[in-house]
């Protein structure tokens, strides 16, 4: 695929997503926002966890830093979130770089790196919970302004505006992701993922490029955190620094295919409706499962089962596995007669 | 004793073996030589069941073992001394050797075999309580061969036994291999060190790009011009 191909796909998708709201009611619009939103965060994670192969289990640290920075700047100093989100991105990038420097410097990798990121995220949650200047566990609440304000990024009447913002963010993040993937940085990162020692032997400054990947990923994630704060109007440490954010962020890219440009988006397109489906299924189950109706937990259970099945049967994620399936299917359809003759030849 | 027919294998999307066929008679020393990346190690790994064959057949002692798992292949007496030795680095020398006779039917002979290994490699006896990871390269190779002997091989496959060893030690190792063969064990040896190997081997195969391109007795190959220029540097 050439470079322009990726952008062509992006343009096509943008078109689809631009048209979709015309057919969506308010709640479906909510789901679409959620979908794009997780696709966005997944894209951020993918740069570090997918391209560079540095599995992060603590993206909530960056997320929370972003959410809190823009919100505090907005609430205490009246600085617009449009500006604040970039300040948050800067902080998160610095934090990420520092974390990356510390861990990579000492040769922490693989599972240990994943656990280290988790520890950093949990520590930031605990510190936030204990910091009175950001209102500790009580959290921060956006003011109600009674309308839509582009300058404050608060849209109380028109949900579509949030959709537009997150779609724009996703497009930019995807463009960054494509750019990285198709350029020197991306090749270096992939080389590091495949064989770090070999990459180092070839003269790639692995420490530097890994830190760059972490910083970029952190910055994009932090902006997602700012968007979260604006969209939901409320943040507290358990919510934005919690482990559930870290899990949700990595779920989509792995599901869709980590290390692939379109993995996070495909994962989000698949998972977000799937999550809703399980809920709908439990609310209105088919006749023979009617005893399951309204049983709390059954939807999440189903979601868990789906994850297990997909991971087992699609080890390379949707992006990697679906073409393989199609290929196998085609081969089977076409090759039935061929293999028969081969067998006979033996 | 061992017949390979049209073996194909590889890693992930990369195919390495493109239809390898060879044969080993009981009691022989057979050499498999070729350049780096020709597929020698892949062949041996597939024989040991560490790698799945994509197609082709492996017949050992009249049985089709193509799809057997490693531990079953080991139980049948087809033992590999792997490239890079694959020792248990944090276990002691003795524990490594004992694990060589992990299979139940071998445990009865454990003491006897241990004695035999120690007589072949007195160094191992001296260092039996040392942690394997701290041994020198030569000692590790001795331990790898010793561990394989603990499994009472009928066919012993050695993958680059001389790799990274001092020339003195290389000769020792070759002598031991010859001795093992004299005791009645069939041997398949993969080596970069082609001259020495072909001198010792009754027959040899040359691999190139995942295929067998030449075969013959050790002597024939040693004097083949193509071999001499390509692999022996003569």
């Amino acid at each position, binding site marked *: 695929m050439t470079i322009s191909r990726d952008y062509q796909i992006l343009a*096509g998708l943008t078109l689809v997503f631009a048209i979709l709201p015309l057919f969506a*009611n308010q709640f479906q619009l909510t789901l679409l926002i959620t979908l794009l939103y997780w696709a966005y965060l997944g894209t951020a994670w993918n740069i570090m966890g997918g391209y560079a192969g540095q599995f992060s289990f603590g993206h909530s640290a960056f997320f929370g830093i972003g959410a809190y920075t823009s919100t505090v700047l907005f609430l205490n100093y009246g600085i617009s979130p449009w500006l604040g989100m970039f300040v948050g991105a800067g902080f998160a990038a610095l934090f990420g770089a520092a974390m990356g420097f510390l861990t990579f410097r000492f040769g922490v990798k693989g599972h240990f790196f994943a656990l280290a990121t988790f520890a950093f995220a949990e520590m930031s949650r605990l510190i936030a919970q204990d910091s009175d200047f950001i209102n500790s*566990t009580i959290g921060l*609440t956006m003011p109600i302004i009674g309308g839509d304000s582009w300058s404050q990024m608060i849209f109380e009447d028109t949900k579509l505006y949030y959709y537009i913002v997150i779609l724009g963010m996703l497009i930019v993040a995807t463009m960054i992701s494509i750019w990285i993937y198709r350029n020197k940085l991306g090749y270096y990162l992939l080389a590091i993922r495949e064989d770090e020692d070999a990459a180092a032997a070839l003269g790639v400054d692995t420490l530097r490029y890994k830190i760059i990947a972490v910083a970029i990923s952190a910055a994009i994630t932090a902006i997602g955190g700012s968007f979260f704060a604006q969209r939901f109007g409320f943040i*507290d440490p358990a*919510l934005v620094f919690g482990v559930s954010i870290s899990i949700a962020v990595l779920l989509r890219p792995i599901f869709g295919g980590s290390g692939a440009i379109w993995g996070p988006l495909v994962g989000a397109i698949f998972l977000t409706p799937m999550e809703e489906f399980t809920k709908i299924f439990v609310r209105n189950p088919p006749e023979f499962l009617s005893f399951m109706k309204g049983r*709390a937990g059954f939807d999440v259970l189903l979601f868990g089962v789906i994850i297990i099945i997909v991971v087992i049967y699609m080890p390379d994620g949707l992006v990697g596995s679906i073409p393989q399936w199609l290929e196998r299917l085609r081969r089977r359809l076409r090759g039935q007669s061929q293999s028969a003759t081969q067998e006979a030849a033996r | 004793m061992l017949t390979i027919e049209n073996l194909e294998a590889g890693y992930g999307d990369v195919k390495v073996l493109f239809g390898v066929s060879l044969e080993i008679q009981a009691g022989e020393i057979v050499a498999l030589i070729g350049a780096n990346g020709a597929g020698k190690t892949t062949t041996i790994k597939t024989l040991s069941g560490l790698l799945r064959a994509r197609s082709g057949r492996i017949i050992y002692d009249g049985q089709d073992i193509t799809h057997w798992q490693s531990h079953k292949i080991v139980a049948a007496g087809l033992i590999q001394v792997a490239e890079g030795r694959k020792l248990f680095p944090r276990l002691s020398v003795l524990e490594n050797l004992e694990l060589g006779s992990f299979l139940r039917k071998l445990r009865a002979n454990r003491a006897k075999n241990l004695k035999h290994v120690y007589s072949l490699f007195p160094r191992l006896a001296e260092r039996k309580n040392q942690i394997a990871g701290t041994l020198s390269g030569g000692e590790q190779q001795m331990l790898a061969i010793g561990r394989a002997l603990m499994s009472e091989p009928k066919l012993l496959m050695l993958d680059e036994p001389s790799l990274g060893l001092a020339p003195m030690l290389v000769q020792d190792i070759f002598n031991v291999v010859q001795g093992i063969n004299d005791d009645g064990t069939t041997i398949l040896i993969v080596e970069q060190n082609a001259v020495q190997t072909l001198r010792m081997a009754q027959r040899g195969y040359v691999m190139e790009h995942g295929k067998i391109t030449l075969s013959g007795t050790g002597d024939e190959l040693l004097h083949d011009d193509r071999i001499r220029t390509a692999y022996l540097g003569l």
Partner: protein
Amino acid sequence: MSKILRIVGLMALLMMSFGVMVTTAQDDMMVVRIGGIHPLTGFLANDGLGMDQAIQMAVDEINEMGLVPGITLEYVSADSTGAADVGQQEAERLITEEGISVIIGTFQSAVTGNVATVAAREGVPLIIDVAAASDITERGRDADGNQWTFRIQPNADVMGTFAAQYAVAMTSAGGGELGSVAYLHEGVTDYGRSVYGAFEAEAANIGLDIVETVGYEFGADYTTDVTIVGASAPDAVMVTGYYGDGLTIAQNMEAIALDVPFVMGVAQGTYDQDQFVADAGSLAECFFNSNYRWDNLNPHALAVRARYAERFGEGMTSADVLAWQATYIAADAIRRAGSGDTAAIQAALLETDYEYHIMPYDGSITFVDGETPNAIPVVMQVQDGAVKQVWPPEIAESEPRFCTSWGG
């Protein structure tokens, strides 16, 4: 180019799955739907599930008795999973997809605040059954200042304030004097801190000395936390937290034989529960809790709890009772509004004057700025294996006893 089309097409196809989202038709004019949002999964599911059942029971009763003439109520429940963003999303779903006219919920302050914002924005009334944080009712106002969120529970300020006053009053009624207290509260969610904050403010007000404060994490063992509290040798120990931690803390107090004959929960989730008595046995004796509560002297309250126990095979907690009560308040407003029109229901809620409640409040339930002004907590104590109301004296079933079950 065909490859691009195929990928875009594939994604578009996946998007179509949205089309399958089931939308429920509004078939019957006589049906008004009530939505409930509670944590039905996750670590607070214990509380949320009971409240969900209580609302279902109330709706069934109201329909059966025809309390809302010409209208059948229908209950739609939703799971917040304990997360504020999920709760908010579910509120949006209930409003736009399920067409509900009133929301009842949601147990946690963080979730409730978000739902209140959505409710105000969308113009749908929210009746809080349980959620303590005081500012939620403010967040439930739209830009024109219309109140969309209503609470029948005493909020964190009220509960913290009253607990401090009750503690002092109870001690002096018993002939003693309360000089110092130590406070243990969960330090993970806003609930622990906001209740403690209110208590602290009132304590400063009335000259009550707080000699030690421990904000604990959820863990397997609280012996050290309890020891810290004990080392400050207070006259009383206050505890704010959820069920599981409260139970373990009680066991740990017994273990170190805490020498303080006055342990009281403040809006706490354990010490006024029948399950506490069942789980902890004799250990439960003497524990106080100042909490929201039904009026145990009211025979209707006992009947409601008996019906609940019969139907669901488990005891009805205070939170369940509040959820049940909130449903009746909603039904009352729907009856007066005469339809499922949300604005009419909101107007009716503003006018609420409901005297048939089973809460221990003096007079009927009304709303001022979304709060019930006469909503107060009650002090309960486990006495002889039963939870008794002991304070304030007007509704006390028994005198408070200052003791510990481990003999202090």
